[in-house]
């Protein structure tokens, strides 16, 4: 058709179309700052033309569609970028918390405490019997130990905070999942009737919010249904159905259909959840494990030396600090339950007895077979000891700990230890300085705190070194040697096994003397040798002895030899385990090669700095990328007010022009009607 009716019709359509376009524009302007809003564009096209009078006339205009300007690829990229960014920024936050715990700029830092600790030992070496030095050492050591305790509890607190964050995060995730499912239902229902632009924007925004918590994958099917799954493919939303996540026993569980639960903790790498889990399951445990190793190392190295010495007075009773879990398991085996069971080796230690006047009664060697001797054996042997005819010592097991004391009929008697080559005293916590099984319970031994005279600065003059097996030795037996050496110069003994019953010895490369293997065979100058176990022919041992200084078994208040040995520790390389935790690898430990305790601490503190620095840099990098993508997305989907204003004017003028069409056609009609009149 044509004619004036057509003009009117076209004008009416044009008015309506331009008004729709202005509606869309106003919607855009209104949502200029709405998070996740995508700019909408009216799609206006010419209507199908119609033939009339031999010509084809256009039929005006119509609104074909309201188009949502989005780029699906960019949206997905943004969402996964958001996951990565949230993960590292949570790690950055928590790393800065760790950094402040290990802050090295203050005087209370761990390394300062450790320096003070070494200094206190040096001061004690300068004045071994000084009570001020002893008090100061105990105080400095307690401060050091407390620093470890505080760090331990701070790390645990951080772990608890992370658990709370994860719990709250899981609630948020489940809530978002329900919302996505609701919108899914609406969009699918809407499917045939409309394009649901704004619902899609909302859903998109929800997925972005979800990405902040967890890494997700999405897939939109033709009917508008959005399938959401975790980064590793566990479905979370499909149509109106949700599969929720819960946090139980430190693990994230995915609840599948029915009542099946799957542990997905290890599969979450992105989002805040990924960052929290990384901190909770890897960074903090690694930090804790290394802190524990450091505490254990300080404990062990100091105790090992300390247990060789003697304080200002002998001991009247001593109780070990570490308990065995089973009195009948070999002390050197894991089953014994001792923290330092692996440090116990075959060897022996000397137990000295002093009478009420402090004079030496005598000493005895107690041989330790790491794989055979149990707590019961050791306590039994000490309990039954008769030293130089005097059975003055009681020994028993108290709550798994070794107790040794003088009995009531020998009041005023005391005892002391020396020359422990088996490490058993240090492992049991007998005559030790520290007690700990890690950073949590790191402390100065109560017996030192109660009686500072028990700080073992001196060593008992014994003069006979331990028997050292030559390389290639295959004997399973133990040789111990005993003094006092009465010769007038330092000497060296060599001991050679001839067969299972005979051995030979010589002093300082002199002539060989043959002897019969037995429990106590004297060689020369007061030195005797004890054989325990079975021996192979041609095996050999050596014993170094030093010239006698002082009287056998005595110790001097001014003797600082044991303290000097402890101060040497500061510059000695020790082997300390280094732990590293990772999601795939679990916990791996490496022996740090020959670093001093100070160096290990410095490396440890610096490793926290390095981790923190690397997540900070990663965050910056991820943020830059995310900003770039956001800009690109906004270039496509964001509202530009200038553009909308220009469009508004464009559509407004078109609207005005369409209105003009109506007046024109009215004029035309008027003209026609007047003609008829």
């Amino acid at each position: 058709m044509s004619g004036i009716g057509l003009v009117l019709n076209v004008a009416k359509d044009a008015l309506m179309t331009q008004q729709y376009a202005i509606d869309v524009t106003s919607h855009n302007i209104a949502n200029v700052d709405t998070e996740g809003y995508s700019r909408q564009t009216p799609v206006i096209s010419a209507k199908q033309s119609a033939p009339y009078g031999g010509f084809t006339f256009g039929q005006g205009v119509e609104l074909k569609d309201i188009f949502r300007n989005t780029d699906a690829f960019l949206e997905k990229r943004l969402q996964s970028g958001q996951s990565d960014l949230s993960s590292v920024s949570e790690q950055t936050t928590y790393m800065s918390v760790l950094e402040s715990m290990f802050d090295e700029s203050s005087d209370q830092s761990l390394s300062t405490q450790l320096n003070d600790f070494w200094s206190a030992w040096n001061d004690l070496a300068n004045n071994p019997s000084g009570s001020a030095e002893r008090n100061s050492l105990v105080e400095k050591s307690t401060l050091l130990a407390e620093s470890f305790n505080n760090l331990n509890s701070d790390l645990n607190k951080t772990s608890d905070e992370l658990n709370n964050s994860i719990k709250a995060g899981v609630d948020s995730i489940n809530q978002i999942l329900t919302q996505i499912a609701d919108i899914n239902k609406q969009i699918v229902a809407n499917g045939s009737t409309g394009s649901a632009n704004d619902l899609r924007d909302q859903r998109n925004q929800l997925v972005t919010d979800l990405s902040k918590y967890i890494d997700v994958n999405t897939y939109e099917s033709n009917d508008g249904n959005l399938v959401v799954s975790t980064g590793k493919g566990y479905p979370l939303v499909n149509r109106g159905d949700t599969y929720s996540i819960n946090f139980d026993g430190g693990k994230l569980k995915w609840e599948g259909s029915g009542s099946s639960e799957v542990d997905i903790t290890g599969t979450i790498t992105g989002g805040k959840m990924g960052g929290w889990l990384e901190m909770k399951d890897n960074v903090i445990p690694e930090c804790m494990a290394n802190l524990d190793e450091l505490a254990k190392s300080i404990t062990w190295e100091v105790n090992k030396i300390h247990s060789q010495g003697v304080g200002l007075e002998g001991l009247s009773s001593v109780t070990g600090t570490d308990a065995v879990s089973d009195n009948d398991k070999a002390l050197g085996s894991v089953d014994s339950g001792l923290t330092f069971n692996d440090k116990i080796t075959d060897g022996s230690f000397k137990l000295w007895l002093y009478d009420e006047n402090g004079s030496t009664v005598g000493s005895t060697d107690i041989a330790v077979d790491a794989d055979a001797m149990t707590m019961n054996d050791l306590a039994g042997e000490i309990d039954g000891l008769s030293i130089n005819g005097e059975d003055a010592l009681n020994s028993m097991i108290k709550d798994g700990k070794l107790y040794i004391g003088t009995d009531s009929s020998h009041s005023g008697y005391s005892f002391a230890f020396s020359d422990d080559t088996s490490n058993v005293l240090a492992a049991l916590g007998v005559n030790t300085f520290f007690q700990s099984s890690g950073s949590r319970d790191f402390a100065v031994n109560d017996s030192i705190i109660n009686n500072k005279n028990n700080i073992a600065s001196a060593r008992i003059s014994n003069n006979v070194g331990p028997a050292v097996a030559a390389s290639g030795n295959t004997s399973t037996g133990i040789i111990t040697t005993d003094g006092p050496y009465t010769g007038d110069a330092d000497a060296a003994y060599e001991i050679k096994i001839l067969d299972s019953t005979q051995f030979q010895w010589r002093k300082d490369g002199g002539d060989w003397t043959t002897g019969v293997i037995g429990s106590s065979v004297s060689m020369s100058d007061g030195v005797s040798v004890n054989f325990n176990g079975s021996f192979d022919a041609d095996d050999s041992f050596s014993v170094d002895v030093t010239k006698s200084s002082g009287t056998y078994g005595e110790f001097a208040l001014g003797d600082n030899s044991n303290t000097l040995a402890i101060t040497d520790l500061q510059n000695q390389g020790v082997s300390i385990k280094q732990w590293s935790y990772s999601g795939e690898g679990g916990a791996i430990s490496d022996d740090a090669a020959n670093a001093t305790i100070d160096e290990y601490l410095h490396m440890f503190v610096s490793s926290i700095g390095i981790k923190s620095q690397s997540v900070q840099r990663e965050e910056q990098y991820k943020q830059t990328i995310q900003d770039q993508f956001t800009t690109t997305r906004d270039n496509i989907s964001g509202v530009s007010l200038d553009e909308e204003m220009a469009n508004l004017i464009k559509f407004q003028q078109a609207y005005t022009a369409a209105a003009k069409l109506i007046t024109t056609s009215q004029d035309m009609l008027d003209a026609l009607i007047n003609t008829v009149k």
Partner: protein
Amino acid sequence: MRIASKTIYERVVSSLSTSYSEMCKAQEVVSSSKRINKLSDDPVGLVTVLDMRSSLSNIDQLSRNISMGNSWLTASESALGQVNDILTSVKSLTVQMSSASTGSTERANAAGVVEEDLNQIISLANSQSGGRYIFSGTDTDNAPFKLNSDETQVDYNGNDTAFSVKIGATSNIAVGKVGSEIFGKDWDSSNIFKTLIDLKTSLKNNDVTGIQEAMGNLDQHMSKIQDEISDIGGKSNRMTVKENIIADLKLNYTSRKSDLEDADVSQAIIDLNSKQLVYNAALTSASKVMQKTLVDYL
């Protein structure tokens, strides 16, 4: 290219926060004059800084040990110097008394002088430094020498290990002395106290042979004491060398620590100014671009 309206706001916000945080960081460096304020500022440099810090603390401790050792050495040197002076005067007295022209009364008087000298040497042999006996081995709480009740013998009560202090990572130096090694271990002619007690008896008894015998022994003792004094001198010397080394090390470590840890203040201030400039520029440009849209002109 079309730019969305919010892009400009977001850019403004992000560039303002970046330049603000950089300015804060620069300000922190200036105000603390430290380059490393947090572990993550330079974790690798931090290891060296911490190593230097513990080395410095160790060095401070060692110099305390050395000065403590020096006080022992000074005390020993002065005590032994006095012993030497006394022995010299005893020697000249003995020479005088051995002369045939000396009468028994003079000799008996001289015996009193020798007794006085003996007591003085015992008291010097019991010298203390900081309340500890320096000639007692490590048995520093007990006086090493004691004249027995009938004044015929002086016993050594110390032990045979000299007291040591730590002057290096692995080196200890004996600053105390084992008294018996200086004054005589066995009760024979090598024992200073025996010589003096015998001399006193000889003088009392007017025994010229005994006096002459003492003369020979005194020479031995004096040369022994002089050996000990020169040994102490050698140790003092070693301590001085060690002290100098430590002072050099301290300077070296302090400067290395400072290189890594301390900020170059002028550079830091320039940095701060430039960051401030950037921040100001960001603020100014933000205030300009955020004002205008097409709406203003319609």
